[in-house]
């Protein structure tokens, strides 16, 4: 019985042990450490990007991508201009023939 009372007393003491506790204060120079950490994060993000790019697999994949893009653009470029040039030719022929007609008309104007 006495033991129970003692245990209850200890329990109450523990439950009330935070009464009157003050706030724990942060370690000094927090702002300095924060600034240093943010600076490191900035630098390391560039380092990470460079490290990632310089990986052989990534570099090779990038190179292949560039080649594929070049090939695609080149292929499209060689196909498209043919029609464009043809259109241009027709257009200029039309223009020329009409102008020729006009010129002919001028030249063949009968007195």
């Amino acid at each position, binding site marked *: 019985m006495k033991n129970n009372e*003692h*245990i*209850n007393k*200890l*329990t109450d*003491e*523990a*439950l*009330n*042990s*935070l*009464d*009157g*506790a*003050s*706030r*724990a*204060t*942060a*370690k000094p120079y*927090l*702002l300095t*450490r*924060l600034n240093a*950490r*943010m600076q490191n*994060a900035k630098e390391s993000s560039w380092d990470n990007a460079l490290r990632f790019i310089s990986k052989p697999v990534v570099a090779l994949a990038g190179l292949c991508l560039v080649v594929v893009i070049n090939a695609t653009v080149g292929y499209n470029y060689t196909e498209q201009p043919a029609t464009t040039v043809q259109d241009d030719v027709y257009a200029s022929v039309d223009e020329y023939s009409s102008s020729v007609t006009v010129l002919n008309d001028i030249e063949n104007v009968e007195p």
Partner: protein
Amino acid sequence: MNQPDLIVQLQQGDEQAFKRLVDEWQDMVYNTAISIVQNEDDADDITQDVFIQVYQSVSSFKGESKFSTWLYRIVISKALDHVKKKKRKKRFAFVQSLFGTASEEEIHPEEFNHPGVLMENRERAAELFKAMQQLPDNQRIAFTLHKLEAQKHQDIAVIMDISLTAVESLIARAKANLRKILNAYYTNNNF
């Protein structure tokens, strides 16, 4: 300077405003973190994480709640994440210990003494903190905010986004559970 002005300046990337923010809130952030993770170095890391997150995401703060509420939510979330990570690490360390590769500190961490507790209460407070580790997260947070941050039940309700009745119930259950845990501890250790 009032708080809305400080927030506006922070959103504009003013470094002086960030300095003022850190000066004003560092102890609140650190105290909440240390009360949850129960380790000074971990609490320091969390405090830094919290301020970095605040700096990066202050633009998303719309001012719908109090700034302190927003800050408390960030600290609590980071501290609980940290506790979960540590628990996982501890389980892994236990497995490692079977092969004799884990360090003693990982398996049996040192007794925690909160720096703000009165000297005459240190021993009992350490036992209370140990018991608090066994509480469910929501009971632990409600009890911690009430006892160590001296927050009113109404404010705890806003921070935890629950009703006032729910907060009262959580704190009552936390106290009942702690009483049970401590009683068992003192009985088993022949005090």
